[in-house]
């Protein structure tokens, strides 16, 4: 017993000395020595949850984190419950991370009194980007986006557009399109993207904004008119033009980015280590294969790129949503 105690004291002393001499790297060296929790603010089985589970599946490998990333679902109020909890209650010791959805959570933090904003969250890395596409039913009278816009100009208030909920990428794309073309649409928010797609397939709405991946899967029952991104999607939809190409000023602000973030106050060495180790983990061959099989478009981005992207979106969305603000 005595010896154990002695050893314990000695190791304590040693670590204290080391900590004094080389305080920061020690923290990062030992990190992580237990599983790390990743909060997903949506239900199990949804697109974000599904992708988060795939991209984190290799974390336990020595070359990445050496410890598993464990997904914990805290759904509710379109993500607000989980993100509020994360910004307020999550420990900033590096063992609690969360998945983010852009532009969704930034838009929410602008419109609602949320406990989170880009100021109290630290991005780690981005894994995916799903652009919104403008879709109509196969039997629709419209064959191009411009035909739809012309119709909307002549029939104000008659065009309905479905999308996944309020202040999501789909909603942002709709607002942008309405503003750029100088028309008004009636937005039909549904609970989740699958429901929004169903409204288009069933002919309940004139058109819809939906995820590229989901629309691509139902392409034989749809007409995909345009893509709200800066470039065409060469892999899945090489023939679908961007809005810019057809002369409508809609950029990539509605692209749904997904990635991992930490609460503010997490030690910088831990953040740096995660920012270094996680992007290669997203690019693991097995991860890429599973993501491709699921039809989930990937876009791995480093921490610095994500910081810039968050700031850009914050500025743009504050302007776009200023009339909808509820604070």
């Amino acid at each position: 017993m005595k010896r154990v105690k002695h050893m314990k004291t000695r190791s304590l002393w040693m670590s204290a000395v080391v900590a004094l001499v080389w305080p920061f790297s020690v923290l990062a060296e030992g990190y992580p020595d237990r599983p790390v929790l990743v909060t997903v603010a949506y239900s199990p089985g949804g697109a974000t949850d599904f992708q988060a589970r795939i991209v984190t599946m290799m974390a336990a490998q020595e070359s990445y984190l050496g410890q598993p990333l464990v997904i914990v679902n805290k759904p509710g109020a379109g993500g607000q419950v989980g993100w509020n909890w994360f910004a307020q209650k999550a420990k900033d010791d590096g063992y609690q991370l969360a998945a983010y959805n852009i532009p969704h959570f930034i838009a929410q933090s602008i419109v609602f009194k949320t406990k989170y904003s880009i100021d109290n969250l630290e991005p780690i890395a981005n894994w995916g980007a799903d652009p919104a596409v403008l879709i109509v039913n196969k039997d629709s009278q419209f064959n191009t986006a411009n035909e739809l816009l012309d119709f909307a100009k002549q029939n104000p208030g008659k065009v309905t557009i479905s999308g996944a909920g309020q202040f999501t990428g789909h909603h942002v794309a709709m607002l942008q399109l309405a503003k750029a073309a100088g028309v008004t649409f009636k937005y039909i928010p549904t609970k989740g993207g699958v429901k929004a797609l169903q409204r288009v397939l069933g002919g309940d709405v004139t058109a819809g904004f939906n995820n590229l991946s989901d629309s691509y899967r139902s392409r034989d029952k749809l007409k995909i008119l345009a893509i709200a991104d800066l470039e065409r999607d060469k892999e899945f939809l090489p023939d679908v033009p961007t809005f810019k190409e057809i002369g409508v000023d809609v950029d990539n602000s509605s692209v749904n980015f997904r990635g991992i973030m930490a609460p503010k106050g997490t030690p910088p060495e831990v953040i740096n280590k995660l920012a270094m180790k996680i992007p290669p983990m997203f690019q693991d061959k097995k991860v890429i294969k599973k993501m491709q099989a699921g039809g989930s478009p990937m876009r791995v981005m480093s921490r610095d790129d994500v910081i810039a992207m968050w700031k850009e979106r914050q500025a743009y969305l504050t302007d776009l949503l200023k009339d909808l603000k509820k604070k």
Partner: protein
Amino acid sequence: MEFLDYLPQVFTWTNLSILVLGTVGGLILGATPGLSPTMAVALLIPFTFQMAPAPALILLGAVYTATVAGGAVSAILVSIPGAPANIATLLDGFPLAKQGRATEALHYCFISSFIGGAIGVFVLIFFTPVLADVALQFGPSELFWVAVLGVTVIGSLGTTSVLKGLFAGAFGLWISTVGYNPVVGEERFVFSEHLTGGINIIAALIGLFAIPQVLTMLEDSGRSGSVEMFKMEEHKLLASFRANLARVKALIIGTISGVIVGIIPGAGGQIAGLIAYDQTKKFSRSKERFGTGEPEGVIAAESANNAMVGPSLVPLLTLSVPGSPTAAVLLGGLLINGLFPGPDLFTVHAEVTWTFINSLLVAQVFMLVFGLTISRYSRFVTRIPNHVMASAVTVLAVFGTYSVQNSMSDVFVMMTLGTAMYFASKFGFSPAPVVLGVILGPIAETNFLEGKLIAESGDGLMPYFFTGTINVVLVAFCFLSIAYSIFSEVRKIKKQREDTA
């Protein structure tokens, strides 16, 4: 008969052991309050990452089938539905158990689940091309009327008084509006931070059913110190089979309701059992026996919620539009294996797809066999002393509620609703209408709001909600259902007056 070509594929050692594992595990998960079929399937998907497509889907399918049936076990034995789909099972299942007929009730439950489930899978096999487009006919207006049809059932559920049933239902509808609404994008009635996420259906379900049950158990055990909750008679399996098959009407009504509700996307299996229960009651000559331990009630409810499983996959496999919340999660399981819903599924991936569908059929058999085995041991549950049972149920209730969304707020909501329900039950209110209100409220409301938005930019509100064949048929059903309830209530009162006079 293409499915027969692929039937042998199911009978490999790997697939069979996965089926056994999935069925037994599913029955246990299903019987645990809080672990609904949707959650069970969602949590299993990551485990299938390392498996080949066919075994992975077989596992998910077997778990889906077994959890739906397993939820009836706790409904019958301890009066807590394992999932929302089992509420209707409880209404007559628990009274049966109280009379010492728990084994018999469980027999009915698994036999009817098997019959309903197998027919459901056959519908999936033979009618998928015919039924595929039916799902798309159900837009916001149609779904709104489906929910209203559900609401008309509320008054007659499990209470002695229609008025009290309606009050309880209205309370349920009201609390379902708490929280963030996805269509209007606003928060409502959020006077406490714990209510931001709204009233979770599972939390409400567990609280309303389990907590009053626990408090009643403690009340009784203090008074008499009774060791036995209720006695249990042995029941011959063969007699159960005979009795079950004799009740053809309940089986037919249950199975048909389940199949129809399964195909309608968004209605969810949760109301399949309730609609079947209500219809069976209306068509029965001995209505007054329902709610007091009528086997037909259990048979209708269980055949319906299992008949829902197969058809809920019809719109999923053809259009990637899920017919139930669990089917929505299953979509993830398909995608990760590279199986995209659509025509390809039955041509390019025919082997995996048909093996999966066939395994659903075989899973029904396993579910029957293991379910009946479990029924034999259920008497041990009923021998547990009340105070032990009460603490076990409390632990399960808290654990089950927390695990749904990893949220302590849900546990507070569960406890509050449960305690309130305990006092309300002293005045003759019952929990089933409240839960039904919580389930139907959001379906009716979001679809009405969506429909209203669409109607305003089109032909206007009245034409949108009252034209179209399906709308008209559903509205007619709603009127019939209400008229019938009033009619039978008036007749009941008249009869009572005659009796007393």
